[in-house]
């Protein structure tokens, strides 16, 4: 009853005209971002972060939730119609979605993707309500050792799951942690690595670093790519309806994808991307017609599309309950909350219930808006790809510059933006993923304070810090996850070696 009344309150908050407008605007912008390859939800959220300063915190969160959901859905449109994944999380949709489009079933694929996203969004919201509440209640009993354990385990899993080189991911995490130590020491007030620049006393701001690494670096990387020529498969409105058989085959994958996506979303790292691959493999294994996968199986669209949207809901759980972002996009959400003077964490649900429940309700509304907005406007969204690069890229640079300046009116922040743009260009070009660095920068200061408080209270006894029920379980779970992934990797390597020799 408590949940229902809170949810009703949340809907009352989300359904105000201003919040409805921002939910719609977020879903619309998110879809555009999802359609365009490159910028990504993180880049767009980072760029738009500063422009939410004048908004109420709840409205800003509603706006970001819309962008995140919209970008997940927008990526699928280009995957199906053009075989171009706007987002990494839409790569899997290309496999069967584009094949369906080639067979004249583009409309059905788009509708199933939209409905799958809606179903997943709805189910994951219920997951978020219950999981976040349970976790937040438990988190009220957490002390510094537990928070350090959460941060450390999160970063370890992030390094393992981020893809690419393990060593490079470790370096990026350590660089992020190093950046997090710039500024006044939280416990003693001593200035560290500020080189006499007073503006660095508050630490390196997250926003210019994220926008440099994701926005400016992306523009620099895209500048050297050749402009694509796109041939669009046209879809008429009457072709959007799937057949009864297609519906029947899609329901199971949608529900399974939602559940898988939600739980994978709880993990640190690129959970929406991982969830699509897991869902695709699961559906192929469960299917009575595995031979159709790769040739236009509707299950290959329904499952992954549901999974990537559900993962977004899952990613909100650690943020809302613990105040710890496990994905870079959630780190931007933390940045937005901080800008509005709100520290996310276990007490947020009690102190700012209208914020938590308003966001939950707006996610539902955002999902509904995506459903009604995106299908009729498919043609418009895909035509966005025709905007020439020479117009789009300078505008992104301008948005980054003004966006960063507007937060603190700081010239140092602008310099940090440019510096990390160049750093990001070189590092990303050589396979260094920026996401672990950004997350470590956000989590790092919290981890440092927790570590030092834990050591001081345990008089330097590390065992006392580690062998506690919750912290110990977390370390054990992380160790198991690493061991299992190493064993799986070894088995796969052996199997491929045997195949080669045969």
């Amino acid at each position, binding site marked *: 009853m408590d949940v229902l009344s809170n949810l009703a309150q949340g809907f009352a908050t989300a359904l105000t005209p201003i919040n409805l407008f921002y939910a719609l605007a977020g879903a619309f912008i998110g879809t555009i971002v999802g359609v365009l390859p490159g910028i990504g939800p993180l880049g767009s959220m980072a760029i738009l972060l*500063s*422009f939410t300063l*004048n908004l109420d915190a709840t409205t800003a969160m509603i706006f970001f939730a819309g962008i995140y959901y919209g970008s997940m859905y927008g990526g699928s449109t280009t995957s199906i119609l053009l075989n171009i994944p706007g987002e990494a999380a839409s790569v899997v949709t290309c496999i069967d979605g584009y094949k369906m489009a080639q067979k004249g079933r583009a409309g059905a694929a788009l509708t199933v993707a939209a409905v799958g996203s809606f179903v997943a969004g709805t189910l994951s919201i219920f997951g978020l309500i219950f999981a976040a509440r349970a976790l937040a209640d438990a988190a009220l009993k957490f002390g510094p050792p537990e928070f350090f354990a959460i941060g450390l385990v999160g970063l370890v899993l992030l390094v393992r799951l981020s893809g690419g080189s393990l*060593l*490079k991911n*470790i*370096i990026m995490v*350590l*660089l992020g*942690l*190093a950046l997090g*130590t710039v500024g006044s*020491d939280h*416990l*003693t007030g*001593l200035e*560290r*690595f500020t080189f006499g620049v007073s503006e660095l006393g508050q630490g390196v701001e997250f926003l210019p670093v994220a926008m440099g690494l994701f926005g*400016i670096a992306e*523009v*620099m*990387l895209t*500048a*050297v790519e050749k402009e694509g020529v796109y041939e669009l498969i046209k879809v008429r409105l009457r072709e959007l309806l799937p057949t009864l058989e297609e519906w029947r085959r899609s329901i199971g994958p949608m529900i399974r994808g939602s559940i898988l996506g939600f739980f994978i979303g709880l993990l640190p790292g690129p959970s929406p991307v991982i969830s699509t691959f897991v869902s695709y493999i699961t559906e192929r294994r469960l299917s009575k017609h595995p031979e159709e996968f790769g040739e236009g199986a509707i299950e290959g669209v329904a499952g992954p599309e549901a999974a990537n949207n559900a993962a977004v809901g899952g990613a909100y759980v650690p943020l809302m309950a613990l105040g710890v972002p496990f994905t870079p996009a959630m780190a931007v959400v933390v940045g937005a909350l901080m800008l509005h003077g709100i520290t996310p964490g276990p007490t947020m649900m009690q102190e700012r219930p209208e914020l938590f429940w308003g966001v939950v309700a707006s996610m539902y509304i955002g999902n509904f808006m995506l459903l009604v907005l995106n299908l009729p406007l498919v043609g418009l969204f895909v035509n966005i790809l025709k905007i020439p*690069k*020479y*117009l789009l*890229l*300078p*505008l992104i*640079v*301008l948005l*980054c*510059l*003004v966006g960063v*300046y*507007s937060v603190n*009116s700081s*010239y*140092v922040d*602008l*310099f940090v*933006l*440019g*510096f990390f*743009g*160049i750093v990001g*260009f*070189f*590092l990303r*070009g*050589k396979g260094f993923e920026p996401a672990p660095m950004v997350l470590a920068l956000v989590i790092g200061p919290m981890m*440092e304070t927790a*570590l*030092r408080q834990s*050591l*001081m209270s345990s*008089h*330097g006894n*590390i065992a006392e810090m580690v062998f506690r029920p919750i912290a110990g379980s977390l370390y054990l779970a992380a160790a198991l996850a690493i061991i299992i992934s190493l064993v799986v990797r070894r088995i796969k390597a052996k199997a491929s070696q045997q195949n080669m020799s045969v």
Partner: protein
Amino acid sequence: MHERVIAVGLIIFSAIYLLGSIQLSVGSLAQPGPGFMPAVIATALLVATTLNAYHTFKKQQNNEAQEEGLLKPLAIGAVTLSYPFLLRPLNYLTATFLVMFILFCIFRVRTPLFSLLLSLIVTLLSFIIFSRLLGVVLPAGPLEDMILRL
């Protein structure tokens, strides 16, 4: 070549960071000081970057003749870095116009005249949108005041 430069650059950064950390008060396990966490991170970073450099130098280098391809992105980076230095003395309109014009030229927008016009329109529009509609406080001088009064 670039990969090796990056690998060496990362080691240099780690070493400097380690030196800086040690100069802060590291403290002990029971009383960790402000330099404790930086020292731990720096040590791990130095080990990781050294390992990375070892792998990079061991690898056979592909002939990365990409210097030409670097020109455009580096020019974009340089323009972005120069923006704060232009913004302070020139204020928003002039600084942004210059930066946009250079960016449009870098991206080879049809003709220089077209770039000029486009930069002018984008600068003016962005000023009106950010300053008027979104309430962003941008560095303003007589030119900006004049536009705001219109």
